[in-house]
């Protein structure tokens, strides 16, 4: 009798093991795909500035500083979600934030910043999205943390959440700035 009970209990045991794995899986973030860009030099580019057509911006200009590259667009709704956080960060002077206005229209982008507040130290205008391709952007918004040597240290896919800011981005910035 006992042996039979054991036999019929096998599916239950297998399922318990599966459930344990699923539970561990839940604590992991599958989106934390090791980005090939992390630890590498931020790709160089030179783009027109959003506010001052004719002037250009390139990552070279940020050498020696820890900075954020925030990819956004006026057509991107999730950007509205993270924008207040960026504005707050700029008021606290945490770190210079460079905006990359991605596949946008200049007028729409400028109007958006006037309406929502401009947290950016500088804004580059990537109308064709070519820089986005160099940086492996596959959705807007995305944010890169770049260190004093111009190396990408972190990449946030999707809007910056207060949680990600407090637990990952700000501690990393502090560490890199020290």
């Amino acid at each position, binding site marked *: *009798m006992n042996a*039979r*009970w054991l036999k*019929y*209990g096998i*599916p*239950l045991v297998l*399922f*318990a093991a*599966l*459930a344990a*794995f*699923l*539970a*561990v*899986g*839940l604590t*992991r*973030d*599958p*989106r*934390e*795909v*090791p980005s090939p860009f992390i630890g590498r030099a931020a790709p160089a580019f030179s783009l027109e500035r959003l506010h001052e057509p004719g002037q250009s911006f390139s990552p070279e200009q940020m050498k020696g500083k820890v900075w954020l590259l925030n990819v956004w*667009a006026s*057509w*991107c*709704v999730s950007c509205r979600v993270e924008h207040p956080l960026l504005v707050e960060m700029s008021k606290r002077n945490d770190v210079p934030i460079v905006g990359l206005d991605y*596949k946008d229209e200049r007028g729409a982008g400028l109007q958006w910043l006037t309406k929502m507040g401009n947290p950016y130290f500088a804004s580059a205008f990537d109308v064709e999205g070519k820089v986005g391709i160099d940086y492996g952007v596959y959705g*807007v918004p995305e944010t890169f943390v770049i260190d004093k040597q111009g190396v990408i240290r972190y990449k946030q896919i999707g809007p910056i959440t207060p949680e990600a800011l407090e637990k990952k981005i700000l501690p990393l910035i502090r560490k890199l700035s020290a």
Partner: protein
Amino acid sequence: MIPELGHFALIVALALASAQAILSFAGAARNRHVLMSTARPIAVGHFLFVAGAFAALAWSFVHNDFSVANVAANSNSQLPVHYRFAATWGSHEGSILLWTLMLAAWTFAVAAFSRHLPERVVARVLGVMGLVSVGFLLFMLLTSNPFERLLPAADEGRDLNPLLQDPGMVIHPPMLYMGYVGFSVAFAFALAALLEGRLDAAWARWSRPWTTAAWCFLTIGIALGSGWAYYELGWGGWWFWDPVENASFMPWLAGTALIHSLAVTEKRGAFRSWTVLLAIIAFSLSLVGTFLVRSGVLTSVHAFATDPKRGVFILLFLVLVIGGSLALFAWRAPKVGLGAGFAPVSRESLLLANNVLLAVALSAVLLGTLYPLFLDALNLGKISVGPPYFDAVFYPLMAPAIFLMALGPIASWKHARLPDLWVRLRWALWISLGAALLLPLALGRWSALVASGLWLALWVIVATLLMVAHRLRTAPQATWPARLRAQSLAWYGMTVAHLGVAIFILGVTLVKGYETERDLRMVPGDHVQVGGYDFTFRGTHEVPGPNYAAVRGEFEVRRAGSPEVLMVLEPEKRQYRATGMSMTEAAIDSGISRDLYVSLGEPVEGAAWGVRVYHKPFVDWIWGGCFVMAIGGFLALSDRRYRSRRAAAAASAGAQGARA
């Protein structure tokens, strides 16, 4: 107002589903007629309120109520109205509501079509389904409320994911969910049988039509999803072994095994505990599929709405439902017993082999799908398992199962003789072997893969046709029309479904063996020859769409060497305004013997474009085969004996006699 009514309807539905579960179980446990008789009316009310909630959400989408967060996130006023309606189930919240609606609808169907069943069985079945529904309603109300307001309201919605703006997407999820959720009926019957401690032929017969119906919907749902991937993703593949595809394919494999093992349990009383286990597994895999897609533990193109809080809830729910039912199985199944014995060569043993092969294939797919998760959980790194693994494991397991599929219907129950099988099938073997060896030569290129695929398909077709001829020739009726009429719909259904499998294999084999794919750069005026056709690129022009702007390419197609234009194919590249996403809309000319497929890649420079031109022989047979399988299933479940009470009683007595 309407969204609040919808929200309220969900809460009422939760109360009703709880009542449905508690009263039915209490009534069944104490054998109280008064309590058990409440199950049906409550199930009807439960369905009506869930349907009301669904209607409220659909109304909000159709009327562009952007004060509902879900609508603002997944719709847009520029979106055509049929897609606004389909957007109801385009989001995470909406798809869970659709799931719950399907569950309530199946519950309603069980309540309506179970007059001939013993009251206690009905009460327990409805009780189990009520419990499952409680889980999903709680999930929605606690973690994924589709009616949550957005204050202040958005001026405009973010638009439905452009990938989902497609006619196939309008029907694919409802069909798939009908299948997924349909297995809950078989699951509920299995649990009812375990609780009752009675698992007999009558039980198998009650479960069979429900299982077959769910399987048919699932088959159609998977085929639609695969067809959608073929023309919407723009590179002509039809199956990617993506975790979400696997999540729908695993319940299908379990369901296929279940259909066959139910047949044995009904006819011969054998495989009883195995059948019950399969019923539990089929539905459990539907739930696990939901977990994988909705919790974000695996990355996939489909998993766009993920939230760890939801994952924890679904996991707890999984542990309760699956763990609970498997514990019940471990406790009660030893009492149920194994059923009648059979000889090593018999229809039972063939169906057992089929079941084992399907179960192993299922485990292989499950392992491949979860392997990245296992490794990650053990801190061994993040990896993904791709088609090479699945192809290497799946085909060798399926080939013997397909081979046996032709033998099963011919072998007799209990004890079959190998020499008899040989005599009846040797011609099928020779004909299919000969044709499989020669046909590839006629088609232009001989390869072992094509020959073996063709051989399997032809073997099934010829053996099935021989089986039909034999059965009709030896039927006792005097005339052919009478003989045709005398065969049961269940038998016709089985025959048609098996031929569907063969059609599917023909499609897969021929498209794999003879497709031509060219990815090239074209400037207007360029032409390319693919699969005996000549494609001339005439250039592109811009076309406005309702919520997108498109660039449309123009390709003239001629037969190679002929000046006459057969057709003009116009693939599009669309840029959706609200999301900024760009989408590829392939232009496909479908035919019985081939598809011509042209899609635009990216503009290269000037007027040049990256272009994909494919010639796909017999590719539509893949989905055609699936639909034929589903038609077979529908035929089988329309069989008279599932409907008449007298036939049921007679069969039950017959099975009792057979066992005695």
